[in-house]
Each structure stands twice: as structure tokens, then as C-alpha cells.
């Protein structure tokens, strides 16, 4: 975690650009889910344009995040290694009262945080790739629709994957918001809003060596 921009008591956990990415991505995903599922639930409105525009914005910012993470950030901080798996097993054993040993502190991200990040990565990539393919089937300012670009059976698989990704996002977002709001996790939500955590919180939750 960076010292730059931090005060004596505060450490920067998330730079402004990363926080903007997170919240813009959240807004895009909520618009996408709303425009996908509200019409299915009976709320009829012209949803197609809002859906694909939000999808395009989501695609653009995910590409931006991927490039930034690859070249300007520390990819290792999100890697799940053997130490993370051992820590996860220790945490599970402690939580289930199978062991009295307190779990070790994590690096910048805990095993659970890395896991949900990778799950969102997988699900969003499936949604984006299939969504981009489905764009061929609608009229946009740049091309006319062509529903025959893929075979009917192949379109079916594309639609299944897109739908499965969208449905999975519902469960994942409910869990993500719940854990973000839990009292012991609110420091991480505050860091995603304001950018910083306190030094004392850093010492309590993180291990410098990881």
C-alpha cells in the first residue's frame, strides 16, 4: 500500500483511478442487469440501446483496467499462491472451530477478496465476449443486424452463456454488497470510496511480508 498521498495516520489503498473504475463498473453492471431483467419481470421499456451502450462502456473500462493492472500495478498482489491456500484452510479451520490457531494476516488482498475478484473476472469476461457477439444481431449506428452470422445452435450456446453469466452476477453482487457492508469489512468499503485505510487497520489486517 502506498505512502504517497497519505497522511500520518492514513495509507492509500486504492488510487482515485481504480476507485472510479470500480464504481463505474458497478454502475454499468447494475444498468446491464436492470435492462436485462426488469423487462423479463414485466416492466416494459425500450431497453436494448441502454443495454448495449452500458455493455460497450463496461468493455472499454475492463480493457483499461486490464492494461493498467498488467503494466502499472502489481499483478502478484492478486495472484492466489500456496500461502493464500494455506491461509484459507487455516481460516476455515478456525471459523469451524477445528483449530484454535488465529489465521495469519493477508497481503494487500485476502484469499476471499482474490477469489471474488477472479470470479467477477471470469463471469464478466464471459458476459462481455458473448455480449459483443450478440451485438451482431442488433442494428447500431455502425452496422446493420445480421442474425445469420452464426448457426442457430451456436447462437443458442452464446445466449446460454450470456444468460448464465447474468444470473451468476445476481448471486455474486448480493454476496459482494453484503460482505462490503459487514462491520468488520467496512474499512475496505471506505477504502473503495475514500481511498485510504488507517495504519492501525493496516497492522491489524495485513502482513508486510506478503
Amino acid at each position: 500500500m502506498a505512502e504517497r498521498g497519505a497522511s500520518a495516520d492514513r495509507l492509500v489503498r486504492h488510487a482515485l483511478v481504480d476507485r472510479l473504475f470500480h464504481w463505474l463498473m458497478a454502475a454499468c453492471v447494475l444498468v446491464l442487469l436492470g435492462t436485462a431483467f426488469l423487462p423479463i419481470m414485466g416492466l416494459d421499456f425500450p431497453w436494448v440501446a441502454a443495454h448495449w451502450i452500458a455493455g460497450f462502456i463496461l468493455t472499454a473500462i475492463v480493457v483499461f483496467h486490464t492494461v493498467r493492472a498488467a503494466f502499472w500495478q502489481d499483478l502478484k498482489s492478486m495472484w492466489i499462491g500456496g500461502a493464500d491456500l494455506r491461509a484459507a484452510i487455516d481460516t476455515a479451520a478456525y471459523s469451524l472451530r477445528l483449530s484454535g490457531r488465529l489465521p495469519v494476516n493477508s497481503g494487500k488482498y485476502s484469499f476471499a477478496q482474490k477469489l471474488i475478484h477472479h470470479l467477477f473476472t471470469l463471469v464478466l469476461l464471459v458476459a462481455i465476449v458473448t455480449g459483443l457477439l450478440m451485438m451482431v444481431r442488433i442494428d447500431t449506428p455502425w452496422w446493420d443486424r445480421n442474425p445469420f452470422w452464426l448457426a442457430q445452435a451456436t447462437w443458442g450456446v452464446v445466449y446460454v452463456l450470456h444468460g448464465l453469466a447474468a444470473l451468476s452476477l445476481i448471486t455474486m453482487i448480493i454476496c459482494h454488497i453484503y460482505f462490503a457492508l459487514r462491520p468488520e469489512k467496512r474499512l475496505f468499503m471506505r477504502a473503495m470510496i475514500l481511498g485510504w485505510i488507517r495504519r492501525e487497520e493496516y497492522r491489524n489486517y495485513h502482513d508486510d511480508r506478503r
Partner: protein
Amino acid sequence: MELFRVTRTVYGQPVLQGMSWDLLWVFFGLGVAVVVIHAVYARWFAPKP
């Protein structure tokens, strides 16, 4: 409950259309179940360090 939406061609062959939207409530319920189970566990059963 169906897992998939399927239509038929004029020749009667099934054509996959996508996931069944009945599953919307399954995935929503799964998320709520995780929240409730964890909240109960955290309130009454989790070890206090």
C-alpha cells in the same frame, strides 16, 4: 422448472434459445441464502478472537 428456453423449428427440431428466466429467482434466492446463513453464523456461532 426448466433450465433452458427451447423452441422448435417448423420441422419440429428443438432450438436452444438461452437460460430459462425462471432461474432468476433461484440465483436471487441463492444470494439471499448465503447472506442469511453467514449473518446467523457470524452473529451466534463464529469464534470471537
